[in-house]
């Protein structure tokens, strides 16, 4: 009898503590994984139902195929430090949509925060998932240049209301803009400064496509005229401590400083720190500074002179005010014209990206920001105004 009992004991040998732990660990691991996977599947299912109820996904093979609604993408900073530009452009576009009378157009908005990376993600989504044939955007030159190769490759038109970098001229057949290149504004600015008897200029510019492009043209033009650029310092986008750069500039003893920035925060900081450092020089700015934040600096920015593209016709001012209760914002008129140009092509029957592109090259009309006619590079020519900040408002100089 005892022997049989021994055998039974050997068969049911107790697990060693180590094996028990391992088995429990295995079980616990499996349980955790299964739980997470189930939760994920449920979540995905829920989102799937919610999503297919709202959006229409194309199979992504043919972009811009014939559809009932024409989809237009919008990429711009709706948050972040350049958001005021983004919203101004959005309003211009929506007003133009209203005025165009088109009913078969859907605009899909993407917030790209003026960043190249965001623009690329957004354009991939807009093209592959939403199936847009044309995109209005981006606002900042760097972001536009980042997204342009993708638009070009997919034969989707991109039209910007505010990107002024000279590089965009060569960005592609499908890339247009309703605002003139800084190759022109830089030259205009150089002339302006030189005519005010300044021969010794310093430049403070944002370290990005817009800033660098403008700075290069400004420096070249100014030196051609016979002037001297004694200092050129760059700052990171959004940076608010510019004292080091300004200290170096001060050292070079210039007669004037030209600030090139599309970040209102940096522009405001620059104006403040120029004052704090006791720099008594004439201050100029590119049109990136023509915004509410800079105007609000009042005494600090008093006397600032700005070159700018046209803000719009009087009629446009009235229309904009009636619709929004606001003065037209920077680039609103260019945005209005961008959309109007698109609307013209759509009314002529263009639907796909290629059709819209071909039609755009033939467009010619008097827009609210100037003559809208695209040259072979997709650029427009332009006029510039000069404004001065007096008592918190920008007045024509």
């Amino acid at each position, binding site marked *: 009898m005892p022997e049989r009992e021994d055998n039974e004991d050997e068969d049911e040998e107790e697990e060693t503590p180590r094996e028990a732990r391992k088995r429990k660990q295995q079980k616990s691991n499996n349980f955790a994984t299964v739980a997470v996977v189930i939760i994920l599947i449920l979540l*995905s299912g829920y989102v799937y139902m919610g999503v297919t109820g709202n959006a229409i996904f194309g199979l992504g093979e043919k972009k811009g195929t014939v559809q009932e609604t024409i989809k237009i993408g919008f990429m711009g900073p709706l948050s972040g430090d350049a958001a005021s530009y983004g919203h101004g452009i959005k309003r211009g576009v929506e007003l133009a949509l209203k005025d165009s009378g088109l009913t078969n157009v859907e605009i899909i908005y993407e917030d790209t925060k003026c960043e190249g990376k965001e623009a690329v993600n957004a354009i991939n989504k807009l093209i592959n998932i939403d199936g847009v044939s044309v995109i209005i955007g981006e606002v900042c030159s760097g972001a536009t240049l980042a997204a342009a190769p993708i638009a070009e490759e997919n034969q989707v038109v991109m039209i910007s209301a505010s990107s002024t970098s000279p590089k965009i001229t060569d960005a592609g057949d499908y890339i247009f803009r309703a605002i003139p290149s800084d190759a022109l504004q830089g030259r205009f600015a150089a002339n302006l400064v030189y005519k005010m008897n300044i021969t010794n200029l310093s430049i403070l510019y944002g370290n990005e496509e817009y800033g660098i492009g403008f700075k290069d043209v400004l420096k070249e033009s100014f030196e051609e005229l016979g002037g001297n650029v004694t200092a050129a310092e760059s700052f990171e986008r959004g940076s608010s401590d510019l004292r080091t750069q300004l200290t170096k500039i001060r050292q070079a003893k210039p007669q004037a400083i030209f600030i090139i920035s599309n970040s209102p925060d940096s522009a405001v900081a620059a104006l403040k720190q120029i004052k704090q450092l006791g720099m008594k020089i004439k201050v100029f700015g590119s049109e990136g500074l023509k915004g509410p934040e800079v105007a609000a600096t009042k005494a600090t920015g008093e006397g600032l002179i700005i070159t700018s593209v046209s803000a719009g016709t009087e009629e446009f001012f009235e229309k904009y005010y009636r619709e929004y209760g606001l003065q037209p914002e920077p680039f609103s008129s260019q945005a209005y014209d961008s959309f109007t140009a698109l609307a013209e092509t759509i009314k002529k029957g263009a639907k796909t990206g290629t059709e819209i592109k071909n039609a755009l090259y033939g467009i010619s009309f008097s827009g609210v920001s100037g003559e809208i006619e695209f040259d072979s590079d997709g650029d427009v020519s332009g006029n510039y105004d000069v404004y001065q900040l007096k008592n918190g408002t920008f007045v024509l100089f």
Partner: protein
Amino acid sequence: MIFPYLIHILILIGIYLILAVSLNLSLGYAGLLSLGHVALFGIGAYTSALLNINGVPFVFSFLLAGLLAGFFGFLLAFATGKLKGDYYALASLGFAFVVYSLLLNLTEITRGPLGIPGISKPQIFGWAIKDNFSYLIFLALVCFVSIFLINKIVNSGFGKLLGAMRDDETGLRILGKDTKKLKYKTMFVSGFFAGISGSLFAHYIGFIDPNTFYISELVLILTIVILGGIASLKGSITATFVVIVLSELMRFLPLPSAIIGPGRQIVYAIVLIIILMFRPRGLLGRIDLE
């Protein structure tokens, strides 16, 4: 009808998978908490991108990306040889910052904050990968090969030595094994895979800038590796799926993207904290974190 989007998510998962697995090799098997892996990812991406826009064929830029990143991984291991634990983590974090600021400031080479746009899709011996579906197939191939190789390494004698080093480095040294060489080799291999995942990333998105390889990426990668668990390939794979799907799902919430961006980071941070506090082993890990 959401095929294009599914393909997009799968591609992202594939890229981050290789990266996560490479980090797990160093962290999970060699016990080196390399917070600098995001820099190796970035070095791979930039190498591949710069070579690509200068006309170098994809196969070469791809491999060179891996080799250069591997080399920097080795350098990192070499430089930090004596450091342990959180000092090593911080030094590797410092390395990540240095790489970031070099990418940002050496503008003649990297174009700094302008980034590198227009990176083309791969062309391999005449097979031009034009659309996302083909890219996914190519990526899947690379994934399988990578995981297969790393699995082999982990289960080999070398791998067992690594495990021993993670658990008790001094003991291993007493036994006469050169732990320094082990670390170098591990960080080289780990860096290599991080580099090729960087290359795959650059060629898919088509645009890179220094900010892509900075703190938010670091947090994402860390979350994946810790969620998945140390020393578990299956864990890393599962966690990559979970984290990427979760973060892409957030895009569909009816919230403005100004909220989704930080929202994602908050989710990662909370996931990390919860895991550290309640389940340091992660989902499928076999060992508790240190």
